[in-house]
């Protein structure tokens, strides 16, 4: 009955006129405010104030600007925006000072001190202090632009386009950039139209598995006998991944619009955000976005006069990695322990409180408004035929320009790591990229030309996962990396099924033995057999993918495992128990005491000819001496196995 009414209403041109009128008024108001801001010629200071920026000191930067502005009586507008993805530059600001004649300029690492200096010298005196800039935000004749820098120019932003440009707490800024236009458009056509576009776009879920989003929605639509609910999955528990948090904190409305479109497509009147409670700013931002959207009549009852109702809310999860798995997520929302259960039934068939439930990742949903706005074939122009659109990675580890990167699917790892993210710092060699977090794998140099898309990564033994990437240089021990991830999955296993609960613990325990030189003949085979069985025997995705870091590192770096077992040697000289520091007496400078002062356990002594040696019995291998040894000498080395370190006798008299 209700369904019929909705459908009838959608096709009624009078209602469409009402939607146009109502949304038109909202849009006109947002445009008016934008123009007002633009026409105001006072300088504007844009500051990135997401969690990442705040952690790097952006709040202090903001306060410094405010104080200095008021002390010096300068008029300027501070514009709080989200994260732009350039973590290496935090805290960053963009200053628009049109009266100075310069284009908007991007400044990296703007500490409070720099903020004071820029206020005085640039805003007051007109000198942009070019030695501190990263570049201009527009092409111009005077100063180089950031677009000459491949970290900017090689990205392709669909999902993150507005991140770092708009104030996430002001719905008008989103609307002024055409936000919610897809929503208003969708409400004027039947729900099938939304589904058709999403199906046609080939959009695949960005939460890990890459399932076709349109197909999932279609399955829910088929459950005509059930009420529906849609859930945005923002549990994001992978260590080192923070894409979803950043998007929610920087442009919550795009995700909200995507979730609303999903609800409309399948006929749901309730939508929820599942956000981990450890993301307080994301929770606050999305709550604020929901209430602003309610106030504007963009969600709520009889939305824009269309007759469609949609209620939205936030559920705060308690931050268990496994609760990101959709069946565990449902149980956790129902108040039970988050333990995955067997599928089918899929959530779309029977999910939260028995409702037909569609669960999508933040990035998946945020891609929907642009698809609806520009059309399915536009979306397909980016990416590969099987993996259309963009991939968003948080690239961290041994890389020059870490941060969030949005690139077209199909770009190679080499382009991402070396061109876009600036390669490996300190002239070190690339060793591996760990892709897909704890469920993913480590790919060595031979795979640098692998295109980044769902299927190629799986073929190579890694997976897209939720988009975490750790770049590892030559000083990394691959056994240690596998141990790190197994330690994580082992602790985060829900404990329900035998393989995941006990199997991952045994993997970890073997890896631990290897890293302290207690490996045994047969350990590699044991790791392989156990990994294989855990993969095939586990109940949910956590267990099924948990052995991947072990399996890929064994496949591509087997000799490192063998060296640990057979020779007690860590080829990267990284495992503490298997390596030692020593001082090369040919390089050590007479009379220099840099290493002595920094050693926390007094293990460095002076030799009879006033050079230095390390007492291996006392040394705790913290590496401080190596850090402090002046670069001119570079006399301290790490070696494995430990017994290879040259023995330097401590002079007798010092011994007493």
């Amino acid at each position, binding site marked *: 009955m209700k369904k019929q009414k909705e459908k009838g209403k959608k096709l009624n041109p009078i209602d469409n006129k009402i939607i146009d009128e109502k949304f038109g008024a909202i849009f006109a108001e947002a445009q008016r405010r934008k123009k007002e801001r633009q026409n105001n010629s006072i300088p504007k200071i844009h500051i990135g104030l997401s969690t990442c920026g705040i952690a790097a000191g952006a709040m202090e930067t903001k306060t410094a600007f405010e104080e200095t502005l008021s002390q010096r009586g300068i008029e300027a507008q501070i514009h709080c925006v989200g994260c732009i993805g350039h973590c290496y530059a935090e805290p960053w600001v963009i200053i628009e000072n049109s009266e100075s004649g310069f284009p908007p300029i991007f400044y990296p690492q703007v500490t409070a001190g720099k903020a004071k200096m820029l206020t005085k010298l640039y805003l007051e005196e007109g000198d942009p202090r070019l030695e501190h800039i990263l570049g201009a935000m527009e092409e111009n004749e005077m100063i180089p632009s950031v677009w000459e820098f491949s970290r900017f120019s090689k990205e392709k932003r669909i999902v993150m386009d507005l991140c770092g440009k708009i104030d996430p707490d002001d719905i008008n800024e989103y609307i002024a950039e055409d936000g919610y236009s897809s929503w208003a458009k969708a409400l004027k056509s039947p729900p099938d139209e939304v589904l058709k576009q999403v199906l046609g776009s080939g959009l695949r879920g960005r939460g890990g598995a890459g399932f076709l989003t349109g197909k999932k929605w279609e399955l829910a639509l088929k459950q005509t006998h059930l009420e529906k609910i849609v859930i945005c999955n923002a549990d994001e528990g992978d260590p080192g991944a923070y894409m979803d948090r950043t998007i929610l904190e920087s442009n919550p409305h795009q995700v909200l619009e995507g979730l609303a479109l999903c609800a409309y497509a399948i006929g749901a009147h309730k939508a929820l955000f599942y956000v981990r409670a450890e993301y307080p700013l994301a929770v606050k931002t999305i709550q604020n976005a929901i209430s602003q959207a309610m106030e504007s009549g963009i969600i709520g009852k009889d939305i824009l006069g269309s007759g469609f109702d949609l209620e939205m809310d936030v559920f705060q999860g308690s931050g*268990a990695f496994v609760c990101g798995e959709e069946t565990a997520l449902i149980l956790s929302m129902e108040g039970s*322990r988050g*333990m995955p*259960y*067997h599928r089918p039934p899929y959530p779309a068939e029977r999910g939260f409180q028995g409702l037909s439930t569609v669960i999508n990742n933040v990035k998946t949903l945020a891609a929907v408004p642009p698809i609806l706005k520009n059309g399915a074939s536009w979306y397909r122009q980016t990416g590969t035929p099987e993996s259309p659109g963009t991939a968003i990675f948080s690239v961290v580890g041994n890389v020059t320009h870490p941060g969030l990167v949005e690139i077209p699917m199909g770009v190679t790892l080499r382009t991402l790591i070396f061109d876009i993210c600036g390669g490996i710092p300190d002239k070190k060699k690339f060793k591996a990229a760990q892709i897909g977090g704890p469920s993913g794998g480590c790919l060595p140099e031979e795979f640098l030309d692998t295109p980044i898309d769902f299927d190629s990564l799986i073929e190579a033994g890694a997976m897209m996962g939720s988009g975490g990437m750790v770049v590892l240089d030559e000083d990394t021990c691959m056994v240690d990396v596998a141990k790190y991830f197994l330690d994580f999955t*082992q*602790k*985060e*296993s*829900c*404990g*329900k*099924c*035998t*393989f995941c*609960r*006990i*199997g*991952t*613990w*045994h993997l970890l*325990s073997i890896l631990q033995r290897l890293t302290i030189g207690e490996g045994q003949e*047969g350990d590699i085979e*044991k790791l392989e*057999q*156990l990994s294989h*069985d855990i993969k*095939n*025997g*586990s*109940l949910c995705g956590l267990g099924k993918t948990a052995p991947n870091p072990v399996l890929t590192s064994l496949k591509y770096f087997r000799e490192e495992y063998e060296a640990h077992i057979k020779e007690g040697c860590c080829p990267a000289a990284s495992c503490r128990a298997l390596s030692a520091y020593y001082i090369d007496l040919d390089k050590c400078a007479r009379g220099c005491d840099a290493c002595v002062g920094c050693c926390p356990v007094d293990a460095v002594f002076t030799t009879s000819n006033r050079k230095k040696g390390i007492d291996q019995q006392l040394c705790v291998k913290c590496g401080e001496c190596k850090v402090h040894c002046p670069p001119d000498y570079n006399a301290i080395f790490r070696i494995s196995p430990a017994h290879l370190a040259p023995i330097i006798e401590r002079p007798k008299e010092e011994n007493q």
Partner: protein
Amino acid sequence: MVQILVDNNIIEAENGANLLQTCLENGIYIPNLCYLNDSQEPFAACRLCFVEIDGHPVAACTQKVSEGLQVQTDTSAVRSLQKTAFRLLLSVHEIKCKECSANKRCDLQRIAKFLKVGLKPKGLEIRLKDPGLDSGHPYLIVDQNRCVLCGKCVQVCLQKHGHSYLTFAKRGFDTVISGYIEPDDIPLTFSGCTLCIDICPVMAISLKEGIKS
């Protein structure tokens, strides 16, 4: 009714019936620890009930019977998974059969015999919990070094009482079954219900001293 083929036996069953239960009822044993008869939502946690369908090992308790289904219970892939799961369970199980109240009635002994494996988890380190006895429940003691975490106790308690006085606690390798009593929950007197004790496949739960059933 539909017909399915299990190994070489033709079996008749209700369409949509649970495969594990169907096999067991027809005298075909498949190792299992966590399946409760007629369960609508099988717990599927012990990972012992593997069978092979279309060349893939699947947990029989999560499969529904349908016309013409062909099932093999004794392939190398199935046995390999079952043996590994079993050894994993034994690697955290205190083997003291002679002193154990479950001796000769224990599902682990039965499975060992069926799979023709010993009770020592070959090649795996043994790690027991210390202390092994959990007395968080007012009337029950749970032996953590016997418990196989099949969850049957939690399920039967939930079914009978509407909510369970036993629950999964902690995470990962440390997960245990423990008493779960909210302050205003405590039944003043012991009700005499011993469903959890009776259902336990390894007799890991017992009444505290002085409590009579």
